[in-house]
């Protein structure tokens, strides 16, 4: 029997959180969520006009991570990927948080009037908006967005149920079932994700349109998911968990994904910008005009440099992707950049002359993030941090980058 030096790693590793560690993690997430929701309530009372956009950005930020996780889990099943099995449970736990976004959408449903000016009566007198009102109206907006989130939640819940049952029985039938859910899942996810991006972000400026918009949102989500995986795996590693199971080779591959998605984000975002710049049509170019005005120009430049140029050249060498410090830094940095990207998409509608950060932004991030964190963390109570029943787990741990 072939014996490699990886064979013993599985047994030696720590992939169960002890009850005390789990409880303190749960308490931390609960505290952040509680403080966040109190802040959100205070923000709603103090400044309604500021509250809804801030909440929308925080909602989109964490929703995109959860959708990115669902997408990646499906892709791993469809490609029969072995290397990613050791990090798949972390992805699946982020995917599992998707159903709570159905509830988290409720505040936005109450804010339609404050957020979307197509919902105002004047829209009926606007020659362009008048023609869009059969799509952009409150009833269909709610049906579409709640509908998409509910359908995606069904996929996320089914995939989670199969991987959990496989922990117990190790049966291959769960792998096959997950593949069957993933094939239609990817199609539904791309269509649904585009609907969410069009409705929740693009319709903030309802005269404007871009067919690239859904792809940019999903790409940002996929990038944020990989960044979240790196940050959470490295944090667990620091506390002494998954130190052997997720090894240098897996971090290297996550680094490749981080690099590739940074490139793809730039590719899609630039494609949108270049075509609009070239066409120079009034109803299209205005969207960018707003984002080059006042201090928004600084954020636009920050995105070009910080979301693309710096991570692109920094993550290119192999040694950088295999260095935990560098990789962890850029994962955290790109999460911040992804937030800034969404902030830059949403906020100029409400602050046309320049950005103005508010404490409500932080409160909303804490509220949505803490709630998602609680669901993410709840899956690890007395349960493993890796899919222990997956038949490809051993292969994943012996994986080597050539």
């Amino acid at each position: 029997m072939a014996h490699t030096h990886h064979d013993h790693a599985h047994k030696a590793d720590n992939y169960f959180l002890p009850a005390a560690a789990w409880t303190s993690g749960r308490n931390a997430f609960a505290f952040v969520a509680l403080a966040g929701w109190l802040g959100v309530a205070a923000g709603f009372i103090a400044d309604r006009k500021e509250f809804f956009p801030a909440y929308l950005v925080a909602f989109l930020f964490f929703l995109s991570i959860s959708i990115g996780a669902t997408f990646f889990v499906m892709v791993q099943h469809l490609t029969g990927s072995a290397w990613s099995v050791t990090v798949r449970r972390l992805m699946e736990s982020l995917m599992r948080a998707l159903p709570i976004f159905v509830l988290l959408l409720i505040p936005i449903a109450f804010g339609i009037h404050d957020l979307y000016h197509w919902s105002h009566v004047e829209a009926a007198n606007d020659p362009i908006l008048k023609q869009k009102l059969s799509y952009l109206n409150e009833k269909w907006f709610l049906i579409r967005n709640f509908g998409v989130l509910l359908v995606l939640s069904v996929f996320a819940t089914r995939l989670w149920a199969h991987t959990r049952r496989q922990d117990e029985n190790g049966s291959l039938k769960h792998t096959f079932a997950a593949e069957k859910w993933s094939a239609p899942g990817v199609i539904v996810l791309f269509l649904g994700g585009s609907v969410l991006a069009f409705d929740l972000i693009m319709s903030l400026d309802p005269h404007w349109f871009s067919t690239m918009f859904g792809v940019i949102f999903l790409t940002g989500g996929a990038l944020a998911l990989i960044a979240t995986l790196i940050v959470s795996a490295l944090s667990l590693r620091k506390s002494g968990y998954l130190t052997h199971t997720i090894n240098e080779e897996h971090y290297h591959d996550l680094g490749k994904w981080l690099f590739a998605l940074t490139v793809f984000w730039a590719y899609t975002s630039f494609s949108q910008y270049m075509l609009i710049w070239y066409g120079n049509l009034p109803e299209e170019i205005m969207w960018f005009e707003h984002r080059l005005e006042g201090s928004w120009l600084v954020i636009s430049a920050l995105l070009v440099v910080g979301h693309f140029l710096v991570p692109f050249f920094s993550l290119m060498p192999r040694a950088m992707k295999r260095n935990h410090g560098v990789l962890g830094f850029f994962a955290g940095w790109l999460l911040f950049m992804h937030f800034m990207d969404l902030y830059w998409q949403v906020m100029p509608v409400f602050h046309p002359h320049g950005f103005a950060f508010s404490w409500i932004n932080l409160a909303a991030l804490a509220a949505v993030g803490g709630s998602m964190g609680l669901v993410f963390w709840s899956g690890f109570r007395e349960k493993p941090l890796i899919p222990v029943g997956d038949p490809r787990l051993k292969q994943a741990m012996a994986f080597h980058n050539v």
Partner: protein
Amino acid sequence: MATLDRIIDRLPLPAFLKHEDAGKHYGVIGDFDTPEDLLRAIRTARAAGYSKLEAYTPFPIHGIDEALGEGRSPLGKIVIVCGLAGLTLAILLQWWTGAIDYPLVVAGKPLFAFEPSVPIMFELSVLLAAFGAVLGMLALNKLPQYYHPAFNYSKWAGATNDRFLLAIEAKDPRFSAEEAITFLNAAGSRHSELVEA
């Protein structure tokens, strides 16, 4: 020719009449049953002080580069230099043709701007980087190469099927044919022989 040389080498003739390569050797090659046997033999050989080793296998084996002590390929550096050259070339091309050599205002756009130049910058970077990658790979591997002394090994065909060969090359400072054969046999080789250059 190799056969003729070999016959001449064996004849009792004065040394100056023999083929100039006579007496020159590529090294000693041994063959092993499994990739694990080969990896173990490589590690033992390096521990014994051999440094000029080469492995011939029917498929890529994980960890064999590390075992042989191979460094990282310089190909990545060749590719980045070519890519940046393509980027520079594209900027110069767009700027010189558009703004200097034949300035013509099209659709009210500036004579030179980065927005419409980025696709050309991207394409030329990728093109030259790809040329660098393919041609650099061929050059580093010394390809095309129609002859290699390892072909003289009597069981060479096994390296393309189910055998895992390890060569201790004659240029190794510790090389001695008898010792190398004894060493490879002890390491588990089924058939070790001295191979002509």
